[in-house]
């Protein structure tokens, strides 16, 4: 049905999808690992301990039920099937790969050495099997952020690859404004990479894990709000004026509240953070982008009210989260918003936020 809608439309919508999950199996990563790391997987059957205390009580676990690959493999493991079901079907111009977080080097507790080795293996696997096999796909640099020096070395190693556009950071116990992470931001600026925040496990919740998955999934944006306010108030964007931040998979409707709240706090308490030179909302308008998914059902009027409150039409980028169960369809998820705003949200805002994506010169891609 998606194909049909595209054919019917007068002009195909340009889509830059800011969250696509390719998945590596452990077996696929093995050839990209040296010993001793390889043998921990092959001989010792190592897999990363995952932290989420829930199964996902959805229709098919974390994935869309119809995204199982034709040979019965896990969703996101087969480039050809992803091309057929997503990139071709919906007419993607570009897609940003964000990994499947398993293994997830940045959210490993302890054994950062193994995390760093996995990040390197993952990046090499991603480049060889996805980025260099489809012109539309761009990638994320995976790092073991718990060891910033090691992480910077990995960014130096693969960050200049023409199809790497961002660095993924974890949401964990240490928030991102902390000077601890600043060497990573410096490396990001050096390589023209954005910082991408995907709601990695375990998105930190005050009060620990709620009892039910529905509570956790509803409150994901709170983890995003913590990271954004932490970065702004710790002066990250004052110190790194070229840095852009993409908050992935937290939706965007919490942003207007956060901007308003932070501005008010700034008026009252700014003397505590004298390194922050402008109103927080202004900093966010310039440096922070939010992806739509998982978007709430909204009318055009409701959607535009959020836009008005953000004071910008440049901050929201479209994402599908394919192949996960809470996937948003590029043709169905958002209300009709008019051609200009739709072009921004579906493509141009992302193009502006990822300087390494081919840019438009007039109506021509360069």
């Amino acid at each position, binding site marked *: *049905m998606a194909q049909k809608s595209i054919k019917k439309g007068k002009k195909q919508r340009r889509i830059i999808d800011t969250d696509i999950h390719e998945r590596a199996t452990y077996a696929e990563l093995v050839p990209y690992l040296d010993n001793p790391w390889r043998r921990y997987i092959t001989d010792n059957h190592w897999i990363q301990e995952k932290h989420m205390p829930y199964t996902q009580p959805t*229709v098919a676990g974390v994935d869309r039920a*119809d995204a199982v690959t034709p040979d019965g493999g896990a969703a996101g493991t087969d480039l050809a099937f992803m091309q057929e079901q997503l990139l071709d079907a919906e007419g993607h111009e570009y897609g940003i790969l964000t990994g499947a977080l398993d293994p997830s080097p940045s959210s490993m507790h302890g054994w950062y050495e193994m995390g760093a080795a996995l990040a390197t293996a993952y990046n090499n696997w991603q480049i060889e099997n996805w980025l260099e096999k489809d012109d539309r796909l761009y990638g994320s640099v995976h790092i073991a952020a718990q060891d910033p020096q090691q992480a910077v070395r990995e960014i130096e190693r693969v960050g200049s690859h023409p199809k790497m556009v961002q660095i993924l950071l974890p949401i964990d116990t240490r928030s991102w404004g902390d000077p601890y992470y600043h060497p990573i931001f410096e490396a990001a600026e050096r390589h023209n990479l954005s910082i991408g925040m995907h709601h990695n496990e375990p998105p930190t919740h005050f009060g620990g894990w709620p009892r039910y998955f529905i509570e956790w999934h509803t409150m994901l944006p709170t983890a995003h709000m913590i990271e954004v306010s932490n970065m702004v108030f710790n002066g990250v964007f004052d110190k790194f004026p070229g840095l852009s931040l993409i908050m992935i998979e937290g939706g965007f409707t919490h942003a207007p509240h956060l901007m308003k709240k932070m501005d008010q706090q700034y008026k009252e308490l700014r003397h505590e953070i004298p390194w922050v030179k402008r109103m927080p909302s202004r900093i966010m308008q310039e440096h922070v982008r939010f992806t739509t998914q998982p978007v709430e059902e909204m009318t055009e009027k409701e959607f535009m009210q959020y836009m008005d409150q953000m004071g910008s039409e440049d901050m929201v980028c479209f994402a599908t989260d394919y192949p996960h*169960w809470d996937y948003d369809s590029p043709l*169905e998820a958002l209300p009709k918003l008019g051609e200009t705003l739709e072009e921004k949200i579906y493509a141009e805002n992302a193009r502006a936020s990822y300087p390494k994506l081919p840019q438009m010169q007039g109506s021509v891609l360069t």
Partner: protein
Amino acid sequence: MREVVCKKEDIEPGKMRSASLGKIPVVVCRTKDGEFYAYANRCLHQGAPLSEGALCGDTKRTDIHGNYEYIRDGEILRCPWHGLEYDIKNDGCMLAEPEKKLRSFNVTIEDEHVVLYK
């Protein structure tokens, strides 16, 4: 409009399959007690093909926190994406918002064949 979908035995109780009635994509479901139902094969939320989802059950409404009872196995059609649930025995009503319902079609069994009508 009339469309022969398949033989009756091709859809076992508790299973479903996609079909079409003219140009309309349809999902034909068979409950565990053997009844057939047919609905538009398109989720009301974002249009996902329901036949790729699951035919499953529900948890019984309760006033007791922590009390779980699994009921109506094979009578609830669940979307493959966001898991929205439709009651196939109750006119295709969405469980969360019963005022929303799937478009339904008549199904009959004729000479052991499943036949759709509009």
